[in-house]
């Protein structure tokens, strides 16, 4: 994987704001991106960040109007088979507000949400302590692995020449401390997170990752809002919380690694859906629109919206106390830290997690010399452009991106490059 510099102005440069396609004025309603009146332009909107402004707990940018039909905005239903109106989930209100394409005036400087722009710098480590290079947490007696994230202390970072660093596999039987409870990582092929709850802590999880539990641990449903949206988006409707005293263990159903992410107070991460294994009770959970989609047209009126990385992202923050999130990465996990403005193209389905300060949008790439027929998919490659600053992690065993190859009618903000 190689670093991709921002495209030169004459290639994948933004055409948004050009005389042919002027940028909407601030406060103007969102353009119906991809409609006949405003088709997708080669080059698309700028490779810029998402709308600036402080993020609400639901992920809605501050200042954005609450969801209400706007002039020119389509009704959130679309015509289904036999003319029956069915909900168009791409335009339904959710915790992140309406879902029209994001508009970014050209030249807007990147302004991450101020509350959680960057992970706060770790406090200076006391002399003689060990600071983990992965989670930046300090500990006095790390033993053979970091007590905060389980990373081995006696293994050097493996970094390839392009800047990706392979996350070190957590050693078999390594322990991770959170509060007074511990989590032991067992196994190496499909590792198990075996949590010993002390009685004062809790963890929550998706119910299908539960492997075994003692009788002393009780489980109950964690209240989630937005059940309809989660149902439509294919996200788990049930999140389960475990409390009590005893052992409870979790594992996923694919070969891979467990990635432990300690979250410092005031910081957070966004995680691709269905990769979470557990989170500690001190970690706040929310889900936000991914804002990554494109629409294709098959035939005359068979329009379909695709979410190459899912419709939602899981967001974990630590509002009051340090938290811990365990993810399951399929295959191996790699991470890199992007500098401000630095970009990287990754496969949308390979994203594992990212810092909140990392923005992203779609990038369509068309290889040179490709023949495009009425039925071909136009030889387009679909990428996710991540823009720093912040960490971006990928997993090596990712599923192929869903792209039927039909005519592209619209998308979330995207860039395009024709070679």
């Amino acid at each position, binding site marked *: 994987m190689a670093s991709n510099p921002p495209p030169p102005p004459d290639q994948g440069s933004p055409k948004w704001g050009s005389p042919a396609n002027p940028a909407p004025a601030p406060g103007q309603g969102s353009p119906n991106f991809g409609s006949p009146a405003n088709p997708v332009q080669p080059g698309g909107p700028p490779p810029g960040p998402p709308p600036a402004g402080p993020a609400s707990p639901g992920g809605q940018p501050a200042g954005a109007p609450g969801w209400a039909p706007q002039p020119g905005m389509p009704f959130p239903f679309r015509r289904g088979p036999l003319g029956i109106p069915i909900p168009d989930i791409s335009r339904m209100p959710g915790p992140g507000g309406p879902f029209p394409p994001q508009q970014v005036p050209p030249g807007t400087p990147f302004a991450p949400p101020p509350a959680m722009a960057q992970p706060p710098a770790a406090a200076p480590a006391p002399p003689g302590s060990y600071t983990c290079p992965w989670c930046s947490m300090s500990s006095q007696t790390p033993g053979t692995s970091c007590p905060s994230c389980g990373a081995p202390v006696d293994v050097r970072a493996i970094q390839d020449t392009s800047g990706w660093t392979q996350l070190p596999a957590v050693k078999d039987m390594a322990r991770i401390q959170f509060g007074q409870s511990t989590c032991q990582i*067992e196994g190496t092929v499909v590792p198990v997170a075996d949590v010993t709850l002390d009685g004062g802590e809790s963890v929550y999880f998706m119910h299908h990752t539960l492997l075994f539990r003692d009788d002393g641990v009780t489980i109950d449903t964690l209240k989630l809002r937005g059940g309809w949206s989660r149902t439509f988006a294919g996200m788990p409707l049930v999140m389960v919380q475990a409390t009590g005293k005893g052992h409870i263990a979790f594992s996923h159903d694919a070969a891979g690694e467990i990635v432990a992410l300690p979250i410092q107070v005031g910081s957070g991460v966004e995680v691709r859906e269905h990769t979470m294994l557990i989170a500690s009770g001190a970690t706040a959970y929310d889900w936000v629109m991914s804002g990554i989609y494109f629409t294709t047209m098959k035939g005359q009126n068979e329009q379909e919206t695709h979410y190459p990385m899912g419709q939602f992202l899981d967001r974990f923050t630590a509002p009051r106390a340090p938290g811990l999130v365990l993810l399951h990465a399929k295959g191996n996990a790699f991470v890199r830290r992007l500098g401000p403005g630095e970009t990287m193209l990754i496969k949308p389905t390979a994203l594992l997690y990212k810092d909140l300060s990392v923005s992203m949008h779609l990038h369509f790439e068309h290889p040179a010399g490709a023949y495009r027929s009425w039925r071909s998919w136009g030889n387009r490659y679909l990428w996710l452009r991540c823009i720093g600053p912040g960490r971006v992690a990928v997993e090596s065993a990712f599923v192929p991106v869903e792209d039927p190859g039909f005519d592209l009618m619209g998308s979330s903000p995207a860039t395009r490059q024709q070679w």
Partner: protein
Amino acid sequence: MEAVGQRIECQWCHGQSPAGAQSCVTCGAPLDVRNLVSDSGWREAPRLRDMTEFHFGSSSCQVEGELVPVAEITLSPEDGVFFEHHVMLWKDQTVPVGVMPLQGMMKRSFAGMPHIVTTARGPGRIAFSRDATGELVVLPLHPSMELDAREHAFLLASHTVQYSYTRIQGMRTALFGGQGMFMDRFIAAGQPGLLILHGYGNVFERQLAAGQSILLEPGAYLYKDSSVQMTVETQKLSTGLFGGAGLHMVRMTGPGRLGIQSMYVHHATE
């Protein structure tokens, strides 16, 4: 590892190997690696080293590969193995194969169990593997030992092992226990035998005391002693207007061994 005179006792199968051996001659478990036991009492099944060789009867088995390991059997003329035919990877042309007579063909059809269990006899080589990342669990069976295994989890067994199947007691357990109405039962009646299972992901084992119980994800169950009792418990997870889901878990009650796999087969909740 315990030295017994000039012999070393394997902590996995309790077989004895010559002093200085790197792996157990009975089950292939490495002898120079300490047991990995979690705080909750689960012991990891020994990770067999690549190219480890062990013996049963007058035949031998060599384990090859680490992600999806292969069990390569060198059969002597007096030995044989039986298996489900779709796990056969390759064999010598001279190794004859046959079909084991089974009872209750109609029940097996309804239960989704294999209709045909294939046998192979020596001399010659034959190899087996499954279709997913995991590890081989080598279980030498001593006389009078009975062991139940999740259906389709067994890779092969030696011809001295009696193969049967047992009906899972209780309609709820059969419906929501994660493996249908029957499970395989292997019995070493008069002489020792060998059973090799393939567990998806990592495999863990624990010894349940009499009356001790634990709740399992149904798809995680891999094997147990026949003395371990299995029942299903259901917990309603309510989500208000959306109804909710029923979370089924299997309660295993000792005494006896219990083995689980970490990459379990997930069965959707109701």
